[in-house]
């Protein structure tokens, strides 16, 4: 990766990441996040992790983020008039995060990075290499992942599906108000996103 390309991409990544946390409007935050994710995908590809880069774009940027978009719309979350929250808490948060970054950067600076001493083989980062690892050394992890996704599907459906009506008694006011909002229509979609990912 050449220096100017790195500089450009890194700046883009940082600016968009800051955009995520600075934008008032959640949709704008989301857009910034998508840009960050895509830039990261480019980094992946530049670092030789081509497959992972594309997967990042397909799943992360292409599917998971749509899920966020849905929910923002479903709930009609508007831009905040003015950030609530305590100033002290916020500055503490910012300070803590800054300290963390400083420390990590210091570590990055001191880390004896073996500057890609190893010239990766042509197969590095290809889907074949990845698959071979997935189905041998990481077999258990891979299987666990499938269960994890099942858990997520079941969980998301359990939480977001339409509230069942009471069989015996009349629907309680709370239940009625929930079904009246009509937000349930797309609720199954939420869970389906998980499956598509």
């Amino acid at each position, binding site marked *: 990766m050449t220096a100017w390309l790195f500089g450009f991409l890194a700046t883009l990544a940082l600016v968009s990441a800051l955009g995520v946390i600075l934008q008032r*409007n959640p*949709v*704008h935050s989301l*857009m910034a996040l*998508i840009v960050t994710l*895509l830039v990261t*995908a480019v980094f992946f590809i530049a670092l030789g992790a*081509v*497959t992972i880069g*594309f*997967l990042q*774009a*397909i799943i992360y*940027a*292409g*599917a998971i983020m*749509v899920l966020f*978009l*849905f929910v923002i*719309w479903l709930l009609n979350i508007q831009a905040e008039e003015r950030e609530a929250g305590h100033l002290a808490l916020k500055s503490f948060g910012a300070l803590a995060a800054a300290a963390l970054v400083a420390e990590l950067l210091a570590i990055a600076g001191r880390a004896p990075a073996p500057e890609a001493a190893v010239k990766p083989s042509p197969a590095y980062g*290809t*889907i074949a290499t990845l698959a071979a690892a997935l189905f041998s050394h990481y077999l258990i992890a891979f299987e666990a992942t499938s269960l994890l996704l099942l858990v997520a599907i079941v969980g998301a459906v359990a939480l977001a599906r339409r509230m069942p009506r009471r069989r015996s008694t009349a629907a309680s006011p709370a239940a009625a108000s929930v079904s009246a909002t009509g937000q349930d229509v*797309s609720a199954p*979609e939420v869970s*389906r*996103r998980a*499956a*598509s990912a």
Partner: protein
Amino acid sequence: MFIDLLIGAVKAVVVLLLVLNLTALLLWFERKGSALIQDRVGANRANLLGLGARLGMPNLGLINTLLADPVKLFTKEDFVPDGADRFLHWLAPFLALFPVLVTFAVVPIGDAVTIAGHRIVLQAASLHDDALYVLATIGIGVYGIALGGWASNNRWSLLGGIRASAQMISYELAMGLGVVAVVMTFGTLSLQEICRSQGGVWFGWLPRWGIFVQPVAFLMLLAAGMAESKRVPFDLPEAESELVSGYFTEYSGSKQAVFMMTDFAEVALIAVLLTTFFLGGWQVPYLYRDGFILPGGVHWALSGPAVAILGVISFFIKTLVLCCLQLLVRWTLPRFRYDQLMRFGWKFLVPVGLLNLVATAFVIVLAGH
């Protein structure tokens, strides 16, 4: 180095121009094709200098669609509704079009040719993981539509946007399953390689096209692709009768034109992908590196450039046929209901795709041993 860059740029421009022209052509075909199907004349008014009549084809309306339509659209007022998110409203159409256009970069329109000592692959960009790239760009394409719907500050638009994104995400899965089946069959992610391995024949007469190995995947990809392009019968996001015009209700002028272009570019994209995956891409049946060898054993020698040109022509013919097929479907079938659409996607396409995948895997493993 410079030459390589130049070749790359030229290839990119060529592909871009081809796509743009293809979309224009599709627009014309849509106008006149629908007229034909519905037994009416169709666009026929604009008649620059009486050119059409002079050429003896006043009813083709080529000028209408190729010239008058764009001019009209690009000169109309660009209206942004009150309360809209101006930036995203402006960005959305391009966000929709861009991913579709860049997808074409990896589509091989012909075999490699050698010009002046440079081996040129007729493919704007040759990545290792073309198939993943295609899926990635298609996945990103959702945002233009979705944001366009949201940024318009209009209920119909938003609803259209939501529908569009849900639909696209859902059918992306089916599409992915189809692509994976194809990739497994050919053992490569490179589209050029996929095309290449579709050369030759089985049984001495049957072209080794993907459609004969993966008919299920072909149908799946066709259906899913049409759903991705959000056209009838999957045009729930626009659904004039319910949502006015869906996500681009609030668009006018050039931005509207870009959305329309996206539509047609997607149709073209589906066609080229299906061609590449299932119809041998630039392969011409019985045509080999040095000429035709027909099933009977007849040999007809051809020069290298001629073979290459034939390949490109065959690719475009196949693509056009598939485009026409899609347009035909558009004017033949009624629109789905939204739940039908979802049910079809999730409860039919996905299971079928998974079964197909399992069957493919079994066949590969059994054949491999």
